C-alpha cells in the first residue's frame, strides 16, 4: 500500500491540541466523504508540534485528493475559529521532514 504524507499548518488565535486537530480533520472527512470515504482515505496523524502549529498526516496514495479537501475544509478546531493550510505533500516521511526543516 502506497502512502502520502501531508504537512499542515494551522492558523488560529488559540492554542490547539493535537487531539482536537485530529478530531476536526476526521470530522471534516466524515462530513464530506462519509464513512466509506474515510475508510478509503486511511487518514492517520503522524506528528504535531504545538509550538509551530504544524502537523503531519498520512493518507492512502489513492485518496490524497480526498484527504487534502477534508483538511482544507476545516474551519474550526474545538469550537474555535481556525484555518488549515497544506504546506507540502511527499511520498516519504523522510523527504517531508527534510523539506520542512530546510
Amino acid at each position: 500500500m502506497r502512502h502520502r504524507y501531508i504537512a499542515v499548518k494551522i492558523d488560529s488565535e488559540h492554542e490547539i491540541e493535537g487531539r482536537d486537530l485530529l478530531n476536526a480533520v476526521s470530522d471534516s472527512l466524515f462530513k464530506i466523504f462519509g464513512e466509506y470515504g474515510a475508510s478509503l482515505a486511511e487518514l492517520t496523524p503522524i506528528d504535531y508540534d504545538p509550538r509551530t502549529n504544524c502537523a503531519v498526516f498520512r493518507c492512502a496514495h489513492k485518496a490524497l485528493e480526498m484527504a487534502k479537501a477534508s483538511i482544507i475544509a476545516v474551519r474550526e478546531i474545538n469550537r474555535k475559529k481556525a484555518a488549515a493550510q497544506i504546506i507540502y505533500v511527499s511520498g516519504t516521511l523522510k523527504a517531508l521532514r527534510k523539506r520542512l526543516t530546510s
Partner: protein
Amino acid sequence: MKKFVDLNLRLPIAKHEVRRAEELIKRSAELGYSSIGVPITTEADQSEIQDLERICNENKLDLIKRGDLKPKNVRDLLSSLRSLRRKREVIAVYCNSKSIARQAARDHRVDLISFSSADPRRRFFDSAEAELASKTSSALEIDMAPLIMLDGFPRARLISRIRREVTIAKKLNVPIVMSSGTADKYLLRKPQDYVALAYLFDLDHQTALKALSEAPLKIVERNREKLSPNYVAPGVYIVRRGRDCHGV
C-alpha cells in the same frame, strides 16, 4: 511563476474598518495572491479607495476595483451597467432570476455571472445560459467560502449543483473563475488549496489553476485596456497625441 488572483475578496472599505481590511490584505499576500478584486460600492468615496490602494501597494498586491450588481429586474441591470461599466475594472452580476441571468450572459459588459450559494434552486446556469455566455466571454464565478462554511445537506446540494455547472461550462467553453467570496480571514485559503478543494466538484487540476490565474487575469487585462484613455475601439488605439503627431 504563476500569478494568482482572488477576484472577490469582500474587504470592508469604510474608514473605521481600515485595520480589518489591512489584516485581510496582508493575509492574501501571505497566501500567495498577486492581485485581489474588491467589490466597491457606488457610495464609496475616493479617499477610502485610495487607502485601499496604499495598503495593497505596501503589500505588493494589485487592487482590482470590482462592481457587484444585484439587479431586481432586467431594466435595473441595464441601467446599472450603463452607469458602472466605465467606473469599475470588473463587473459581476448576481443573478436572482432566470431573466436576469440570461440578460447578463448575453451582455458584453458583464464579466462575471454569479449565483446564490445559499439557495441552489436560484442557480440558473444551464446549457442555454452557457451558450449565451460563451459568445460574450462572460465567466462563471464560483465562490469557495460557502463550500467551507456550509455543512451537511446544504453543502452536498451546493457541491452537486456546482459540479453540474462546471461540466456544462467546460463543455461549452465558458471560462470559470474561482474566488474566495469572503471577508473572514479564517475562510481564506491558498490558491493551491482551492485547487485541491475543487476536487469536490470534479474540476481538474489544470482548469482549477486556470480559474485562479489565467481566467481572471484575462478579464482584468481586457478591461484595463478598454478603460485606458488610449483605447478607441477593439484593435484601435491612440499611439501619439498632440505635437508628436506632426509628420506621421
